[in-house]
């Protein structure tokens, strides 16, 4: 019966402010009942949306990577010697710092998963809590969301420090095509990660404003998957920059 009554709902960020009344439409036999939004379907739809959204993000990075490979192989005309030379000087990457950052991001991916499982459990128990006379205690749990955001911020700060180190070694954005691509790929990844961190922070903060746990769960769930994707993407970018330098 799941395909009986498709429902259009705003994305989870939509209804804050004045419009926070839960949308009212009926269950379809398998749903939780009248007047109660079908969060299962919303979650499925949000995950599908995320899966679709990953395609252009991948295309974006793949196109940069192919530009990298093309540019790496191009000879450059040298006006002094009047010949074509190879001007690609591999950037001296601060390996130890980048490895440490990778460790931070790996840890944040793990905590994001813990946050996702935690809120999934809380959302599953939410109906039980509403039964009169049933108390599950004030189970707030460990703040994995905040830890994830902190670790993500730590990664971004670490990337910033790695940039500083590259600059100390004489590699700026326009120094060499190699360094241009290093800055570009790390910045593009960082911006994507910062976006994810903002959404996670939003999910953490709205818990203070009595947003339904099921709605928050959708935000956390989808962003956690996005976070894992960004971790894998970073590993890919890092390996690419290192092995194809």
């Amino acid at each position: 019966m799941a395909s009986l009554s498709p429902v259009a709902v705003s994305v989870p960020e939509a209804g804050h402010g004045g419009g926070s009344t839960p949308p009212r439409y009926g269950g379809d036999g398998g749903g939780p009942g009248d007047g109660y939004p079908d969060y299962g379907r919303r979650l499925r739809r949000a995950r599908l949306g995320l899966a679709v959204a990953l395609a252009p993000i991948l295309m974006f990075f793949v196109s940069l990577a192919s530009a990298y490979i093309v540019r790496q192989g191009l000879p450059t005309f040298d006006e002094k010697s009047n010949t074509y030379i190879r001007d690609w000087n591999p950037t001296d990457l601060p390996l130890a710092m980048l490895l440490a950052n990778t460790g931070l991001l790996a840890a944040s991916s793990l905590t994001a998963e813990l946050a996702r499982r935690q809120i999934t459990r809380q959302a599953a128990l939410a109906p039980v809590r509403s039964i009169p006379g049933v108390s599950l205690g004030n189970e707030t749990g460990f703040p994995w969301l905040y830890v994830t955001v902190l670790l993500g911020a730590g990664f971004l700060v670490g990337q910033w420090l790695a940039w500083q180190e590259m600059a100390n070694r004489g590699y700026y954005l326009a120094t060499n095509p190699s360094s241009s691509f290093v800055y570009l790929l790390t910045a593009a990844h960082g911006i994507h990660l910062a976006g994810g961190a903002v959404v996670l922070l939003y999910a953490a903060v709205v818990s203070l404003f009595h947003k339904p746990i099921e709605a928050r769960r959708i935000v956390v769930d989808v962003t956690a998957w996005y976070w894992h994707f960004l971790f894998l993407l970073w590993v890919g970018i890092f390996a690419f920059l290192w092995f194809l330098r």
Partner: protein
Amino acid sequence: MATSAPVHAHAAPQGFIRKYVFSLDHKVIGLQYYFLALVAVFVGMFLSLLMRIHMIWPTAALPAIGEIKPETYLSLLTMHGTIMVFFVLTTAPQSGFGNYFLPIQIGAPDMAFPVLNMLSFWTTLAAFVVLVSAFFVSGGAPLHGWTGYAPLSALTNSGPGEQLGADLWITSIALFSVASLMGALNFITTILDLRARGMTMMRMPLTCWAWFVTAILGLLAFGVLLSAGILLLLDRNLGTSFYVPLVVVNGQVMGHRGGSPLLWQHLFWFFGHPEVYIAILPGMGVTSQVLSTFSRKPIFGYKAMVYAIMAIGFLGFVVWGHHMFMSGMSPYSAFAFSIMTMLIGVPSAIKTFNWLGTIHGGRVRFQTPMLYAIGFVSLFVSGGLSGPFLAQPVLDIPLHDTYFVVGHFHLIMGVAAIFGIFAATYYWFPKMFGRMMNETWGRVHFVITLIGTYAIFMPMHYLGMAGQTRRYSQFTEVQYMTGLIPLQTFMTYAAFITIGAQLIFLFNFFWSMFKGPKASDNPWEATTLEWTTATPPPHDNFGGHTPVVHHGPYEYSVPGAAKDYVMQTDPAGAAAH
């Protein structure tokens, strides 16, 4: 039971701002896109008229504009192309009609992510404002063409308009890319997740298939354009050398070295070629819908049509190199791109054959939407036949920088897609506004537009074969081209008349919106879901219930049926299928 339960999650808005400005309703957003495209197309047409005037009267001083200088001509060319490709051909058929009718045709109450939908419209509008503002900044609009070839586009001192104007152009393209990605994401999720019960993929109208494949193309192509644009901005403003080799501008050695202008071409055309299909596929969908409805026959070869759309979409991603035969690419690559390009002729021919098969033997109703759909087929064939010529490097090299190419892409991508938009407008106007458009003025508009556009663009093929170069602002003093001036003059007059005829459309459109005769819920006796609901559709599209689909989309003249059409929701006769 689900079908009787209220299904709309966001309640109907009350205030004017929430209802018509920052609306979450896909129908309002669709109309917003449509009106944006309507404004854009008149701006774009006006620019083309200035170019046509300049062609034959190069020294004429125009009122309020003055004399058009060569660099102004290039700015007009750039802005005309950019506005038309992005804000008309991509905006109206996909974002406009797609937004309005995709959810209704699959039986959904709205798009999957309404807030994202609203954001994508406002980002598109911002992109348009940023683009047009390039006219008013110091140096004026950029002159690097809609294709933005580096190094012209990558150097801030390569010409007037290449300073702030070019930065605004790139920013606009980047914003448009982001908006298109949001839109594509919404379209794909909506189709995969929000179809009504019984609406299997193979029961979707071909319009929905076209919007679906177009969204996939957009999803994969616009990310690449975005990355190309970012590299261009870095080259222009932060001294990198992705696209710029060692160059000397006005005797001054620039700081760049080692970049490759071809890198831009590859990235741009990897987006640019699918973009051509982004513009034309929705028109193909509408044409299929209209031809079937007005021939009172099922579409000929529904499955073949679906697979042809997919094949065109796939091939669209592997042929970008045919825009670059002039760049000195390896003959082996050129050969591969050439073969792949000519392969597109196969699904295109399947579609054309099926359209003709649909009309053949039908009880054809020659109403305005049908006329435009037939016009689409005509233009698609006329413009398409020159494709296999240009797909061959040996022919493309002499023809590439001539008017032959201008004629080719205007017929197939520009005018054919516009005819798709017109067919859709005349066809869906009754559903959108609850009134009929004037049929007589519609026919007059069609006849003038069809003859007029052929009169403008068909001679371009001859001009090209005679060696008339494109992109040049002035040719009247070039001896070997002087013999072509009468033909150019004819084309300019044809442009005046054709553009004038669009005022008929504009008048008919707005007059009918308020004064046209009231439309019934299903004035064309069509079968798809949008014709089962009220006119105009209520906020949740189906008045509190979701439809259940029992039939395919084109069941006309079904033997044994009570009427000559069977609605998709009609339970009667369902057992037979």
